[in-house]
């Protein structure tokens, strides 16, 4: 039984990886379009030092570059592709296969991340060539922890989007809601401004949501800043669990509404 699952996962991943390799140019462009944290670094590097929160340019550099890396490997577009498959009836053959279609989308995201890796390394090399005096080396243990944190963070984001993708069963323009999901992610996760600079009340509200844990936490881990490792992982796992339950339930409810458009 176990071996069968491993085999299945391997097949899914390798086929999706082959598919993604076809679109290298496109994936390279997607990698560049995640440039927002670096643009924000530009502004913060001019502003940050004078803000007087004990934040210096080295801190900012490692934070925003790490945020850039985290964002690269937590990109999620499942709502768009699920909507497409739903509207064009491509979901029908998937439903006949003895596997929860969730895994198909999940594996395609993971495969895309593997394809993206060399491009991210390339961009990072360019950044370091121009900013070598700000270079930092996180300890191997921290790197290991942050890779795990990034993967769980990706899972949390994926599950959250999966829940909202289920709205496609009821409404044929559900991906418009993605814009709304992006808002708290943009402003509460620490993507445009580190949480340390937030006013206390807003920071506390942000910490009640999953968003800081999917970006700020792994980024700080990778940047080697002080961060509560236990609390971060606890929150990530809790949110993943909650979203998994809701997502599974929404799928069961929604799939009964599937009308097999285009089939």
């Amino acid at each position, binding site marked *: 039984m176990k071996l069968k699952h491993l085999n299945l996962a391997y097949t899914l991943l390798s086929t999706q990886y082959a598919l993604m390799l076809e679109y290298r140019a496109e994936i390279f462009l997607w990698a560049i379009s995640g440039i927002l944290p670096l643009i924000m670094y530009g502004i913060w590097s001019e502003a940050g030092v004078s803000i*007087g929160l004990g934040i210096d340019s080295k801190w900012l550099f490692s934070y925003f570059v790490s945020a850039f890396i985290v964002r690269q490997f937590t990109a999620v577009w499942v709502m768009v592709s699920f909507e497409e498959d739903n509207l064009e009836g491509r979901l029908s053959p998937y439903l006949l296969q003895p596997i929860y279609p969730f895994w198909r989308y999940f594996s395609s995201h993971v495969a895309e991340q593997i394809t993206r890796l060399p491009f991210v390394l390339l961009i990072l090399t360019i950044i370091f060539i*121009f900013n070598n005096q700000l270079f930092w080396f996180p300890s191997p243990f921290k790197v290991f922890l942050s890779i795990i944190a990034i993967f769980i963070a990706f899972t949390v984001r994926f599950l959250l989007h999966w829940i909202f993708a289920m709205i496609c069963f009821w409404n044929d*323009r559900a991906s418009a809601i993605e814009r709304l999901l992006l808002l708290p992610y943009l402003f509460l996760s620490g993507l445009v401004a580190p949480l340390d600079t937030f006013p206390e009340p807003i920071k506390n509200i942000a910490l009640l949501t999953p968003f800081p844990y999917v970006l700020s936490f792994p980024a700080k881990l990778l940047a080697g800043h002080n961060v509560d490792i236990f609390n971060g992982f606890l929150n990530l796992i809790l949110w993943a669990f909650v979203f998994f339950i809701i997502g599974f339930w929404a799928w069961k409810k929604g799939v009964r509404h599937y009308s097999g458009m285009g089939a």
Partner: protein
Amino acid sequence: MSKLNFSIFRLIKAFWNTSISKELEYRLNLFIEIISVIGNLSGSLFVLSIFYKGGFNLGGWTWSESVVVLAIYTILDGLTTSILQPNLSRIVQQVQDGTLDFVLIKPVNSQIWLSLRVISPWGIPSIISGFLLITYTFIIGKKILSLYSILLFCLTLISSIFILYSLWFIIATTSIWFVRIWNANEVLRSVLVAGRYPISAFPAGLRFVFTFLLPITFLTSVPAEAILGKISLSLIIFSLLFSLALLFLSNKFWNFAISFYTSASS
């Protein structure tokens, strides 16, 4: 000639009527769009406030001046949602399916057709709130706007719209060669986010990039300077000439590109 122009306007009017009635089928979108605009603006204002609470002036711009830059960005973002995005993302599709043929054989300027074929009303909340925000900062600051600075603002805003359009169109045009390029516009959009802030807030290297390589300065900072009355006339003339040159270039580039069009599937 005047008769031909007249028919283009009539065509566009008909197109826009049909596309608006199609979009209005999805009225839920209006709700989503309004929430998204409000959320986006309050988030951006919040981030700006972090900078200003720290006693830092973004590139020497005061708080209300930076808000004007943000407002102009919001207006341009609305225009992108309404016109640029829906039309120019279709070029890629049409090259891929070979349906560009049907555009090229029509007795209408193909660039105008491709750029103005559809309109989406969902950018309107952004456009309105951008103008409201500008008005608000002037009421709060108890500043009186002279007709002259409004005129300068309109001129620079038009040139910034032309520049934005030309950038989008030139990138969309490259799909004639590369076909699957639609996310190149996504790259452009992500870099243009820098226009939310005054360009002088960036370090020198980026400032150079945003002025000479990607003219983001002319998109938001220059119109903001115009309405705030801190701009020289020569810069306005330069920005107008620059935008017209880019517009001209986009047209030349398009005509050059379609000579390479091989018409897939036919």
